[in-house]
């Protein structure tokens, strides 16, 4: 009697655990939607398209943080992508394995360092250095270089984000290059290709889909990153006017203002959360789909 019940009970418990994951994710979406409803219904489309974020008068438009999030993440990706690609190619193609292995392990371990540590480094080390040696000399030029030369701006936040996603992206790219059968590479060299031609015309096209997926996963990380950015982006709402002007992201605004928010303000911050979820969900879903179709 006991024996015959054991399996169904176990299956049921394990099934419930798996279902719990699904329930948590749906609960997350539903709670964000319910919580942000007062703000969304009050401001309507202006919540997305107005950049007037004024907690004192209870007027909330999220365009500033939305643009700040997309801009800083795109910049971070622009910095990180070529470097991550360079590392992965160097480690898999040109570097003796005896050196490649320690470098790879080290960079993978560094990928685990909490983002708040990167944020503190940005605040205390990188921002002052940047302000003194780069921003102050360039500030006379105006245009995209205009801004208060205190080192806390969209550009520096993007650099910190780029450093943060770099080890992760380099590790995924390296895995992709390692998954290519050696015969493919040997065939390219056998045809008389130079290393450059082998990489750009044979190896990269071979893993193209996976690379796009990995890049989007890195982008997804940058979009939702909170602590590394909050320290250093300057936290001002409204549209960023130049590369060196302060700004804010969806996540940094939530972290910064949540503790002292009133009722409508809290609802508006939950609205920012919902927007952030929808953006990252879209990016991640596409990335996972591309990465899974790369496996064979």
């Amino acid at each position, binding site marked *: 009697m006991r024996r015959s019940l054991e399996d169904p009970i176990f*299956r049921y418990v*394990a099934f419930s655990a798996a279902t719990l*994951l699904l329930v948590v994710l749906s609960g997350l979406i539903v709670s964000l939607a319910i919580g942000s409803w007062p703000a969304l219904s009050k401001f309507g489309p202006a919540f997305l398209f107005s950049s007037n974020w004024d907690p004192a008068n209870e007027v909330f438009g999220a365009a500033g943080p939305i643009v700040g999030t997309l801009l800083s993440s795109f910049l971070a990706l622009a910095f990180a992508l070529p470097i991550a690609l360079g590392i992965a190619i160097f480690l898999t193609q040109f570097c003796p394995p005896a050196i490649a292995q320690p470098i790879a392990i080290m*960079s993978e*371990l560094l990928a*685990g360092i909490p983002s708040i540590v990167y944020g503190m480094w940005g605040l205390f080390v990188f921002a002052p250095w940047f302000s003194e040696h780069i921003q102050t000399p360039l500030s006379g030029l105006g245009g995209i270089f205009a801004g208060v030369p205190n080192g806390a701006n969209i550009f520096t936040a993007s650099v910190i984000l780029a450093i943060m996603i770099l080890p992760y992206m380099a590790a995924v790219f390296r895995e992709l290059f390692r998954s290519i059968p050696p015969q493919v590479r040997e065939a390219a060299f056998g045809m008389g290709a130079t290393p450059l031609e082998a990489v750009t015309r044979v190896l990269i096209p071979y893993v193209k889909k996976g690379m796009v997926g990995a890049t989007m996963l890195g982008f997804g990380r940058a979009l939702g990153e909170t*602590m590394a950015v909050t320290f250093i982006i300057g936290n001002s709402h409204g549209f960023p006017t130049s590369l060196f002007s302060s700004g804010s992201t969806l996540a940094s605004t939530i972290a910064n203002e949540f503790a002292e928010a009133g009722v409508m303000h809290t609802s508006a911050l939950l609205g920012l959360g919902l927007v952030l979820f929808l953006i*990252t*969900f879209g990016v991640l879903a596409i990335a996972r789909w591309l990465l899974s179709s790369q496996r064979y």
Partner: protein
Amino acid sequence: MIANQSRALRRKAASWLFTSACLVATVIALTALLLILWSLVTQGVSAINLEIFTNDTPGAASQYVGGLRNAILGSIMMCGVAMLIAIGVGILAGTWLAEIGGNTPYGHAVRFLNDVLLSVPSILVGLFIYQLLVVPMNGFSGWAGAIALAILATPIVARTTEDILNLQPNSLREAGMALGASQFVTIRRVIWKAAGAGLLTGGLLGFARISGETAPLLLTSLNNQFLPEEWWNMLSGPTASVPVVMYNFALSPDDVWIKLAWGGALLVAAAVLGINVLGRWLAREKKM
């Protein structure tokens, strides 16, 4: 002939430039990461002393040389509770995916959503738990923080569990069945046992991920300057944690507080690195 030679030369030169560019990229990245490690160690080591483990965090405008005791204990308690939940739910869910229902349409959906949950921005989990627990319970609490951390760690444990169980040879399952054992006994006594080190690695990876998490705790456990008298009361009110204390102190104008923040940063980074190295070491043992 000459045209051919110059073309070969150009191709060689381009390739050489490309190789150098890859080398330069590696050097740039390593330099940046080493600079961060360097600041962390130089600033952090000078902040670490015995007081950091014996004193609580200092209050505003006090002369008291504080430490991080309450924050360290709070972090350990919240991460501990979170890992208990995450390991229980994660291993069961991973086992279901690998052994029971992973190939059904529902299994594919669970696997996909688990991957999404794995990379949801952590601050959104904080917002969710704030709505689910903090508002109904009328206040921030360490329990809410622990649940938020559990939600972040569970998908990692589930994912590694499924991957590890899929590596176990089918002959193990057949051997269990052939002895007349039920599926539950086969999984518990044979499969889980064979995959033991791998399961532990999954737990450690999840633990490493949450021990430095800041954003969700800002919205759930907040901070607490005092340590409750009884340890079992620790999580029932607002609870200090090392990352949140680091965040508050790093943004303060007080040099002593900033120093404590660096000390906390070094502690957290060392803990995460240590856990990761241990996890990797266990995983390597397993493969051999």
